[in-house]
C-alpha cells in the first residue's frame, strides 16, 4: 500500500491511520464492483470510506490544490475540460459522475500516489449544487466555478434560489476562495457577489424562468439579447473578464487570446470551455505554475467530451448508421440540446428517451417546460424510448410532432430504426435512460 502522507500535513496521526484503513477497504470494494461489472465503482466505496472515517475527505485533500465545479448543467463536461488542461500534472478527479461528498472523497482515495513524487497534485471535482458548501468547507479549494442554476428534480430539491443563497453565504465565510462565475445567469451572479473579487465569464444562459424576479428586491428582472438587470434596484449583469467575440475568438479584458473551436457541439459547450480556461488560468496563477492560453485553446480543440456525452458510437449496422448520444436532465438542458440539434445540418433522425427513476426525478411534468414545438418544422416524426415514453409521446403530440413510441431495449430500437445509410442518429436521453443505453453501447 502506498504511503499516503508524506507532505508534512498537520493531520493527527490517528486520523491518518483510520483514513489509511478506510482507503484500503474502499479500494477493495471498488475493485470487486468493477470486477463483477456492477457499476462504475464510485458511490458505494465512497460511502464506505466516509462511514469508516468521517474526516477522510479532509485528511485526503491535504496538500491537494483543488478546483470545484458546480451548477445545474455542464458540470461533468467543464470538469473534464479543466482536467484536460491540467493533464501534465498529477490529477484527482471524480470523472465517474459521483459528485456528492463521498464521490469526491473516493476520487482522492482511489488514486495511487506515485511514491517519492514531488509533483504538484491538483484536484478537479464536480460537486452537486446542494453539496457545494459542505465540500468546499472541507476540501478548501482555491477556485470554485459556478455554471448556472435552474429547476431540476423538483420532487427532491428545494427551490434553486435557496441554493444560490447558500452559495452566497459560503463565499462570505470563505473569503480566500476565488470564484469564477457565469455573469449571464442572475442567480449565479447573486451567489458570486458573496465573494470579494469574483472573475466573471460570459458563458451564456438561455433559461430565464427561474430568475424572473430579482433575488435581492424581488422586482422583475428584464432580459435582453445578452444583458439583464433588475427593473428597480441596481442588481445587473456585471461586465465579464472573459467573453467570446462574434467570430468565436476568446477575449480576456479586451485582449484577444485566440479562436475557440470545439469538436463537440452546442453553444453552451463554448461557454463551458470559456469557464474552464478562466478557472485553469486562475488556478495556475494562484499555485504558481505557468499557463499558456493559446496552448489551452489548442488543447480544447481536440476535447472529445466526457462520460459519453456527445460521443458518436457505432451501432454495428451494415448500413453504417451511427448514433450521437447526448444527455439532458432538466428543461434548461433539453432546450439547449434542441438548439444544438437545430443548428446541426446533418441531424436528420432524432430519438428521445425519458425515464423517471430516483436519479432522474419521479415527476416528469417539467417536459412541458421544454419547447419541443421548435422541432416541429424539421421533424415530423420522433422516436420516443424509455420507461416514460408515453409522457414524451403526449408532449410531442401536443407540439404537432408525430411520436413513435418503441418498447424494449433502447439499443434494439436504434439498431432497427429506418435511416438513410451512413447517417448519424441524434439521441437525447435523461440521466438513467442515457446511462442504460451507454452501458449497452459499450458492451
Amino acid at each position, binding site marked *: 500500500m502506498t504511503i499516503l502522507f508524506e507532505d508534512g500535513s498537520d493531520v493527527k496521526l490517528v486520523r491518518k491511520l483510520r483514513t489509511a484503513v478506510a482507503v484500503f477497504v474502499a479500494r477493495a470494494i471498488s475493485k470487486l464492483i468493477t470486477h463483477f461489472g456492477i457499476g462504475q465503482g464510485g458511490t458505494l466505496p465512497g460511502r464506505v470510506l466516509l462511514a469508516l472515517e468521517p474526516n477522510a475527505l479532509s485528511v485526503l485533500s491535504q496538500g491537494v490544490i483543488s478546483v470545484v465545479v458546480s451548477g445545474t448543467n455542464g458540470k461533468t463536461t467543464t470538469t473534464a475540460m479543466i482536467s484536460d488542461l491540467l493533464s501534465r500534472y498529477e490529477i484527482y478527479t471524480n470523472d465517474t459522475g459521483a459528485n456528492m461528498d463521498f464521490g469526491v472523497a473516493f476520487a482522492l482515495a482511489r488514486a495511487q500516489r506515485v511514491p517519492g513524487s514531488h509533483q504538484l497534485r491538483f484536484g478537479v471535482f464536480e460537486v452537486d449544487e446542494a453539496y457545494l458548501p459542505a465540500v468546499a468547507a472541507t476540501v478548501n479549494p482555491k477556485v470554485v466555478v459556478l455554471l448556472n442554476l435552474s*429547476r431540476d428534480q*423538483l*420532487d*427532491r430539491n428545494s*427551490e434553486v*434560489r435557496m441554493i444560490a443563497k447558500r452559495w452566497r453565504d459560503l463565499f462570505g465565510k470563505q473569503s480566500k476562495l476565488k470564484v469564477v462565475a457565469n455573469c449571464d445567469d442572475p442567480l449565479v451572479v447573486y451567489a458570486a457577489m458573496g465573494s470579494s473579487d469574483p472573475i466573471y465569464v460570459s458563458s451564456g444562459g438561455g433559461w430565464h*424562468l427561474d430568475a*424572473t*424576479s430579482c433575488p435581492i428586491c*424581488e422586482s*422583475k428582472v428584464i432580459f435582453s439579447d445578452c444583458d439583464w438587470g433588475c427593473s428597480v434596484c441596481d442588481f445587473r449583469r456585471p461586465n465579464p473578464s472573459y467573453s467570446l467575440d462574434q467570430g468565436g475568438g476568446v477575449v480576456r479584458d479586451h485582449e484577444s487570446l485566440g479562436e475557440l473551436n470545439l469538436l463537440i457541439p452546442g453553444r453552451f459547450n463554448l461557454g463551458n470551455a470559456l469557464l474552464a480556461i478562466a478557472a485553469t488560468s486562475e488556478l495556475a496563477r494562484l499555485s504558481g505554475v505557468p499557463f499558456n492560453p493559446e496552448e489551452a485553446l489548442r488543447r480544447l480543440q481536440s476535447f472529445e467530451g466526457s462520460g459519453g456525452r456527445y460521443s458518436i458510437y457505432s451501432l454495428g449496422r451494415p448500413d453504417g448508421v451511427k448514433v450521437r448520444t447526448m444527455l439532458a436532465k432538466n428543461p434548461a438542458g433539453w432546450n439547449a440540446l434542441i438548439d444544438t440539434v437545430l443548428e446541426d445540418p446533418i441531424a436528420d433522425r432524432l430519438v428521445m428517451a425519458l425515464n423517471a427513476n430516483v436519479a432522474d426525478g*419521479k*415527476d*416528469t*411534468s*417539467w*417536459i*412541458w*417546460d421544454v419547447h419541443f414545438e421548435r422541432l416541429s418544422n424539421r421533424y415530423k416524426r420522433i422516436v420516443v424510448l424509455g420507461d416514460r415514453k*408515453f*409522457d414524451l*409521446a*403526449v*408532449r410531442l*403530440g*401536443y407540439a404537432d410532432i408525430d*411520436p413513435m*413510441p418503441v418498447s424494449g431495449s433502447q439499443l434494439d430500437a436504434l439498431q432497427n430504426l429506418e435511416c438513410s445509410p451512413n447517417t448519424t442518429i441524434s439521441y437525447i436521453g435523461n440521466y438513467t435512460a442515457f446511462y442504460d443505453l451507454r452501458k449497452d453501447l459499450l458492451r
Partner: protein
Amino acid sequence: MTVSDSSVRIVLLYPDLLGTYGDSGNATILAKRVALHDISAEVVLVHSDETVTAEGDIYLLGGGEDGPQNYARDLLSKEPNFARAIDKGALVFAVCAGFQILGDSYVDARGEIQSGLGVVDAKTRRIKGDRAVGELLGESLLPISQRLLSGFENHGSGTTLFGRSQPISRTLRGVGNDYDAHVDGALQGNVLCTYMHGPALARNYALADYLLEKAVGLKPLEGDWLTELQMKLLSERIESLS
C-alpha cells in the same frame, strides 16, 4: 395583448410565479383540444407585471413556491378583473399553490396563516404527515368518461373542504387534499381545483374536455389520435401502481 372575439380565450395567470411544476402545459393542452374542434383558441399569458383581462373563458393557475405564492395572491386580490370574470361565469382551473390561494386561508413557509381569495370553500394548513410527494390516483367524482384520475402530487400543506365545495376524486393511491381527507381537489360552481401535476390534463383528457364543456360548451373529443395517446399514458401510469 390582443383578444379577438371569435376564439376561446385561455388565460394563464402568472406563469413567472406559478410555473414551477410544468402546469403551464394545461394551457397548451386546452388550446390544442379547442383547435381540434376547428375553433380557434388563444392562450393569453399574464405575467406578474401585467393586468389580467376580464374577457377570458378559462383562467389557469399553477403550482409554485411559497414566496411567489404570496405574491400571486397579493396581485390577484387587487385585480378587479379576475373577480369580475368569475362573477360572469368564467371557468377557473387551479393546481396546488393556485388551489390554496383560492381558498379562505393557507399557511406559508414560515407557518404564518395567510388569507386566501375566498373563491372556494377550503382552508389549507400544514399537512398532517410527511410532505406528499408521489403518484396520486383517484376515482373520479365528476360526470366524465374517465373512471380514474391520475397525476403527481408534491405539497407540504393539506386542504380541508367545507360549505359548498365538493372534491373531484376519491383517493386510491397517494394523499390528495390531506392524509385524513381521502379525496383530492375541489369543485365549486365554475371553479375546479386539484393537487395533480403531470400536468393534470396531460393524463386526464376527459378532465380537459369537462373543463371545455363547462367553459364554452364543447362536447368531449372522441377517437382523435391525441386522446388515444393520452389513454395509453393514463393506463401505463395506472398499471405502474398495481
